[in-house]
Structure formats: structure tokens, C-alpha cells
């Protein structure tokens, strides 16, 4: 369920609830505003839009990296912009997984250490090694890669490690940011299959941001960012 209406759904069933959110970058006079947006738990949504439409701003707000100047953002019922900086950071580590455009693994760490890092910041008590082994099988990676530096991996292996890192803390919400821009059609489809399988397995809500319209076929929900939020003046600067 995604809605931009004023009707108030059952709060417990929502993965994301945004109410009257506004935000502006310190260096910009433009105001980013989202009136109301609800996303039900377990949904997978494809957010698309042209450059400057507010995709990055939306992701930063949802991840709790940027704090709105007004309004309320709830992730799985937690009012994240009401949390202190450190609590917001901890909440992000424990409940939100992120897959970046370039996968952004820490190049000097091994596969294992990259994944362990996410568990470390979440102060997670899970059996990290057990979960990694389980995911290695699901993502069709051999155990031999876990001690390799990520700089030695192929692009395909790196994308799977990035998925593994995003899922190590069993996140409620997964934010995926243009992950297929550097992949060919086959690799892109393979990546999408793995991602969807992992979301199914973890029952995670997925917000997938891209300007690649070809990916919308993987989603039942596809929404242009401009229909959820808007800039109140000319879009400029970092958006």
C-alpha cells in the first residue's frame, strides 16, 4: 500500500510514514516538501525521477542522515527525526539497509570485515559468521571469497557482497540507490533477482531509487518522486 491521500491507515502496518515534511539544504533557499506518504510493510516501490527531482534528498531523509526542518518521518513506527543524532545512527544501523550506486564497499577491508562492519555499528548480537555463510549460499558466492580484499572481486561479486552487507542486520527497510547503472542487462537482471529473493527471505520493505525506467517491470509499485514531494522553488544545488 502506498498513498498520498489524507486518510490515516493503521500505523502498525506502515514501514514508512511521512507527514508534512519539509527540508532545505543549508546552502540552498529551495524547500523540499512532502505532504503525506505512507508505505506499507513488505512493499517494494520503484521511485523514479529525473535528476534534481529529489531522489537523493528523499533517501537521506528516510535513512535519517538528513533531518527534516519540520514534519515527521516514521520508520516502522519509530519517529526517527525525533531521535538524537546517536540514536538515529544506531536506528539506521539496526533497521535500515543501504545498497549504493557503486556498492561502496570499504576497499581495504576483506569481504568478511565489510559485512562485520555493518553488524558492529548495529551492536548486533547475531551469529555474524553463521549468517554470512547462509547468505553466501543464497547469493551463490564461494566461502573462499570471504577473506579476500574486496578490491580483488569482480563487479558481480561486489554487488552480492553489498547485498550481503545490507542484509546482515535483517533490516526492516532497504534503501537501494541506482545499483544497476554500471551493469549490463544480464547482470542487472541477475542482481534484481537476488535482491528480490533476499527481500522475500527477510520480509523487508524495499525502496528502490533509479532513473532507469527499464527496471520498473520488477515492481508492482512505481511512483515518480515528484508525485510525493516537491521543491518549492527552482531546483538547484545538490538534490
Amino acid at each position, binding site marked *: 500500500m502506498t498513498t498520498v491521500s489524507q486518510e490515516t491507515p493503521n500505523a502498525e502496518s506502515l514501514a514508512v510514514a511521512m507527514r508534512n515534511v519539509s527540508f532545505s539544504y543549508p546552502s540552498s533557499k529551495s524547500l523540499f516538501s512532502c505532504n503525506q506518504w505512507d508505505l506499507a510493510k513488505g512493499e517494494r516501490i520503484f521511485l523514479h525521477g529525473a535528476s534534481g527531482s529529489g531522489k537523493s534528498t528523499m533517501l537521506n531523509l528516510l535513512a535519517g542522515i538528513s533531518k527534516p526542518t519540520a514534519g515527521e518521518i516514521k520508520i516502522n513506527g519509530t519517529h526517527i527525526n525525533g531521535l538524537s543524532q546517536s540514536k538515529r545512527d544506531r536506528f539506521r*544501523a539496526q533497521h535500515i539497509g543501504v545498497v549504493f550506486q557503486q556498492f561502496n564497499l570499504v576497499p*581495504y577491508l576483506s569481504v568478511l570485515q565489510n559485512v562485520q562492519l555493518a553488524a558492529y555499528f548495529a551492536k548486533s548480537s547475531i551469529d555474524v559468521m553463521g549468517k554470512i555463510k547462509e547468505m553466501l549460499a543464497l547469493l551463490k558466492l564461494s566461502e573462499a571469497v570471504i577473506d579476500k580484499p574486496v578490491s580483488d572481486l569482480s563487479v558481480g561479486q561486489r554487488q552480492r557482497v553489498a547485498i550481503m552487507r545490507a542484509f546482515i542486520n535483517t533490516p526492516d527497510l532497504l534503501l537501494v*540507490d541506482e545499483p544497476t547503472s554500471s551493469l549490463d542487462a544480464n547482470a542487472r537482471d541477475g542482481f534484481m533477482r537476488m535482491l528480490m529473493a533476499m527481500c522475500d527471505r527477510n520480509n523487508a520493505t524495499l525502496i528502490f531509487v533509479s532513473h532507469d525506467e527499464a527496471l520498473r517491470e520488477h515492481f508492482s509499485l512505481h511512483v515518480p518522486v515528484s508525485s510525493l514531494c516537491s521543491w518549492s522553488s527552482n531546483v538547484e544545488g545538490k538534490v
Partner: protein
Amino acid sequence: MKRILAWKSLVSRKKTVILTCLSLIVSISVLMTVEHLRAQAKDSFNRTISGTDLIVGAPSGELNLLLYTVFRMGSPTNNIQFDSLDMLNKQKSVSWTIPLSLGDSHKGYRVLGTNQDYFEHFKYGDKRSLSFSEGEHFDDLFDVVIGAEVAKALNYSLGDKLVIAHGIGSTSFQNHDNAPFTVAGILQPTGTPVDKTVHVSLEAIEAIHLAPAQLTRLIEQGRMDLLKPKNITGVLVGLENKFATFSLQRMINNYPDDRLMAVLPGVAMTQMWSLMESVENLLMVISLLVLLASLFGLMTMLLASMNERSVEIAVLRTLGASPLTVLLLIVYEALLITALSVVAAYALVSLALVSLSDWLAQQYGLFLSSNLYSMNVLILVGFIFIAALVAAIVPAIEAYRKALQVQLSA
């Protein structure tokens, strides 16, 4: 995990990190060496004499008296009467005395006229007595006991003959050729001016200053009693009771039959060391400036890495690292570099001391301990870590600022 992250991050930038470490190792080594040399010099200085309660000589200033009686430096301005030695020996509070007669030399090494009490009562270091590596103290009029360094430098052994020159220069035109001495004993090394001293009896000093014919006549007649000295340069005094020190000093300073001055060795030594403090401080300031330059290098290296690490900081933030964690990571890296440099510098200086100690002792008479550990070095290491912490604050704040501004980009 933070430790692994900081370590791996440093390893990934190993070229700049190694160069920064090398710069720090050099500066920390200089600082440790200067501190060690200062401590060793002071220790060696204080080891020169111990157990002596008063030094008595002609009034010439406390430092001057200390310099020529203990360190064999400078020239005595005047002598005191030999009878004054008898007067001192008659004092109830006096336990022992050592007469000293200076003014002659042998190939640049000072000659000291004294008596058997010197070998019995003179103490150095932790009240250690003199001991012989070969032979024994002088028995015969023309016997000589030489210090370890004299024996080594001039390659003397027992039974060798040597001639004493008048004056204290290394070259003298007035050698007492008519009275050659025989090496009767060689002292163990002490690390003090004793090692550089040629010891003869007080009578021998008188004898070499007689005309050759007069000396021959006295020896033939067996009138050795006529060689009793009339003047000596100074006296080292040991007391039965330390509480009598000041009253005896006052009595000596006011002695009516001779012009005498008594000084407390400890007080004079402190006075002398305070004169060297400015040199000591100057060396320390130079070393600290070298360290400061290296810490600026560390700061620059960390600051310069901030741009290339912006993606890394963004990833850490997204994974849940707080800006404070990012700040602490930079501080941790700086402290890790400093710790590595301190350990390497400590090992380097220790190794240098172990391998160069013999050479320094032989060439320069520097007796340096190879054990670098001391409370001062420990304090210095603490100071280095605090300075590194301060130097890391600027790049750490920059990292913190970057961490706050991190954005995901789509």
C-alpha cells in the same frame, strides 16, 4: 573492529604513513637521545664523587675549587699549607682526609699527588671504592698509579717508565727527566676523572721539583723526611658525624693560620649543574621543535587524506557510524602512528646505544647506559602522545564535519 578499521586504513595508505612514521621516528629518537644524554651526563657528573663531606682549598670560589679538585679542570689559584692538613686531621669530627696536590701533567693527563688515604677513602658512584685491575698503590717514591683511560690510551702496563712534566698542558718543555716513574698499579675504570689521572705520592711531587743534584743527594743520604711537602692544593674531608659539617665548615673558613675555604660538594655540584641548564634547555627546545615539525607532518598527512576518504566516511556513516565515531577513528589512527613511531624510535636508540657504547667510551670517554628506560623518558613518551592527540584534533574535526555533511547521492 575500530582497531582493525584504523589499522587497515593506515595500511591502505602505507606510502604516506611510512614517510610520516619515519619523520616521527627521527624526531622522537632525537628527543629520547637528548633526554638520555642529559640524564646520563647528570648521573655521571653526580657519580664523580661521593662520601666526601667537605672540600678544602685556597679561597678561589666554590666552583673553581670543585673543578680543579674533583674534575681536574682549570688551575688552582693558590695552595694551602701542609700544616692545615694536620690541623684538619686533629679535629674530632673528622674521620679521614685525602690531601691533593695538583699542577703537573703527563702527556696531557693530570698528575695528582696524594697519599694512601686516597685509595682507602676516595669513593665515587654509589660509594664505590677504587680498585686495581693490575698492581697496587705506590710504595716507592717513584711509583705511579694510573687511571684506566691513561693505561689504555698510552698503552701502559706494569713496570713501564714515564716522565712527568711541569704544568698541565699536553706539551711541556720542562720535563722532570731526572725522575722517571714506574707504573706500579692500574685502576679499574670508574667513568670519572680518576680514569684520566696519574697518581703519585706527595713526596714524589716534591722530589721532581728539586734540582737533580739535590734530589740525588737526598736519596743517597736516605733523608726522605726532607721531602715532606710544605704546600698542597686541597683536601677532601670525610666526617664522623654529618651534623658537624656546618660547624666545621665555619671553623675552616675562619681559620686564622691559613687562608682556607671549605665547600660542600653537593651544593657546589648543584651550582655547577645549574650553569649547564641553559645548554640543556636549548637542546630540549631544539628537539621539541623537531618533534613539532613532525607532528605538523602527521596533521598534514591526515588532513590531505580527508578528500580521498570522503566516500569511506559516507559509507561508515550510512552503516551507522556516528560523526563522533569517525572523529575517534582519525584520533585512533594518529595515536597508532605515534605508538609505532615511539616503539621504533625506542628500539633504534637502544640499539644505537648498545652498538656504540664501547666506541663512545673509547673515543669520547662517554659512559652511556644502554638502558633507555627512565621516568623522564616515560614522561616524554606521555608528552609525545598528548602532542599527537592535539595534532590529530584538526583533521579529526574535519572528518567530523565531513561526517555531518554526508549525503547519499542518486
